[in-house]
């Protein structure tokens, strides 16, 4: 059983490194960073406690929001998905990404206390 899992994972990684364009890998690295940051924040909250709760929430939501926006950007600039996003150029996707982030940061900063 574990054998097949390992072989699946190794096959996936191989395919990933060869077929994915560089641009997407850059975005993927960014997403991984966001994920780790969020996970560490959650771990802190579990271990040490929820004081101050508003700060924890704002930090965690910032990570979650950024991750979601990053995923949206990745989907929109992926050349394989070009058919689904005919009216949205990669530049437009990036501009949307920036604008949404501005709003997200405003909210997070308001809530961080």
């Amino acid at each position, binding site marked *: 059983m574990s054998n097949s899992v390992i072989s699946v994972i190794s096959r996936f990684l191989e395919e990933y490194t060869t077929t994915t364009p560089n641009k997407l*890998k850059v975005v993927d690295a960014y997403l991984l*960073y966001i994920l*780790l940051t969020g996970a560490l924040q959650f771990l802190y909250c579990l271990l040490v406690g929820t004081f101050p709760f508003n700060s924890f929430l704002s930090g965690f939501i910032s990570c979650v929001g950024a991750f979601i926006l990053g995923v949206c950007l990745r989907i929109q600039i992926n050349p394989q998905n070009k058919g689904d996003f005919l009216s949205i150029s990669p530049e437009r996707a990036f*501009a949307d990404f920036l604008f949404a982030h501005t709003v997200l940061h*405003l909210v997070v900063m*308001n809530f961080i206390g």
Partner: protein
Amino acid sequence: MAFVTRDGLFGLFLFSLALAGAQALTPAHYLSLSDVARLQSLLNQQFTDLESAYYSVVGLTKLGATVHDHEGVCRFLKSQLDPTDVNSVFFAAETSQAISGCEIPVSNETRDILLAAVSEDSTMTQIHRAVSALRSLGLALASQEVVGALTGRISKEDNVMAITLALQTAARLSKQAELGGILEEIEDLTPRLDDLGGIYLQFEEGLEATALFVTAAYSLSDHVDMEPPLKEDQVIQLVNSIFSKKSWDSLAEAFSVASAAAALSNNRFHVPVIVSAPGPATVSHSQPTLQLLVTDVMSQPLAMANVLVESAYAVASKSVILSQAPFTLNDGVFELNFMSSKPTSGYYQFTVAVTGDTRLVANHVELKVKVSTEVSVTSMDLSVVDKDQSIGTKTTRVDYPSKGKSSFTADSHQNFAMSFQLVDTNTGVELTPHQTFVKLHNQKTGQEVVFVAEPDSKSVYKFELDTAERKSEFNSISGTYSLHLIVGDATLENPILWNVADVVLKFVDEEAPVAVQPKTLYMPKPEIQHLFREPEKKPSTVVSNTFTALILSPLLLLLILWLKLGANMSNFSFTPSTVLFHAGHAAMLGLMYVYWTHLNMFQTLKYLAIIGGLTFLAGNRMLAQKAVKRIEKK
């Protein structure tokens, strides 16, 4: 329609009658004898000029008081008189009429000046004073001309004081003149009175205006012998307004009140009646007569009044005790022997009617009379009853006011019982007063416990003390308690506090007798210190710092990954829009930090709008350029 049946109409008629009766107003304020004396002493001041002399002398005369030293007053008037001034002549003339044997000599010049003042061009005050002076000095006057002047003046000076003076002036004119127009002014002026709570009726110009209006209205009405258009309730409300003030600011005000008092007690149409009891309206066996004083608003007794009790009923039972019973006049006071009707003790509602004169106003008065009596305690039986009733009860009879000879002992197996009756000493009827208490007083500790004794259906009072059940109220302190019976009521003349007997109570689980300190209830209590909300415990700095470093580590990982992937800045073109875009973006991130530390949302939004706008424009440009480059590359 259902209303138009005979029964319906009759019912409606009765209803309106009841309503009218319910709304009959009686005076709440009047001049008592001390008020009249106070008014007189105010008017009796030494006067310094003609005006104050006028107010003093004429005011006192209206109150029926004597003015001293008529000769001195006359001399004063003659010395102060200025024959060329209408006001001066007016004051002197009126005052001289009030005292006897004083003739003010008048020259033709003065007469001409007075006659000239009577015209439409003089003020109302001048016309009034001139006409009054001419009349008081016995000089001839053309009444119809005066009426013309007054009517013309009223249309120019349409205020309360002016119209009141016009009324007063008209009362001095000949009856042959056409005074109807001026008489109508009373009716026109009445709606200008302010109704306060249905009790007071006065002009907003104040007490003096109201009082002078009343005086003038009745003066003119008497003169033309026509009833003034004032309803009974309005008259009473005016009485309330004028006589509610018991100390007066000026001579003029005092004079106006005195004039009004004289007008209301002595005119041909409306004389308000004041019915009052000289002391508390209480009747008892020792004092069987109910006394009433029936006077006018100046506390002068009414000569030809007949006072009658229309009906008297008991408040509690609503049964009618008296109907159409007359009072007898005894030395200025109206008396009625109420006890002869043998009323039981309690409160009675009397409706008293004063008749004998058609002018009387507010002559139906409601009065509450109290009948008090004496109470005595009979058949006081004390006993100690065993709870399981195995041993027979021993009842001891105690007579008021002596104390039971032996003390009673009751322990936790026994009940102490008491029964008695309260009867009216005079009639023998059983009473149920408001307060019947049994007080047990511990002689050693000073503790008092009070219980209520309740009557049963036969009006026999019973009190039972269950020693075991009640021990918490006694704090389980055994010992000798003195037993007192307390009886009281508003209608009892002899409240009772009777030490009936001593009772020894034995409780189980006796605690050490603690001296009861009743005073601790009123000593200052310990001060309460405010406890501020304690801030939540923060984790130690070591933990926080560790986690901060931990959080920053993925950033490191990101940079490493990006380097590995070959992300670089080789495509960075230094076009102005690119530079501006990056600068703007950096500024926005900087603004976020500043927002966290210094600003509030509104300021941030303002700055964000500015920077964001610039960044958007620059970014748009930059991305468009990039898009063009991308398409070119393809």
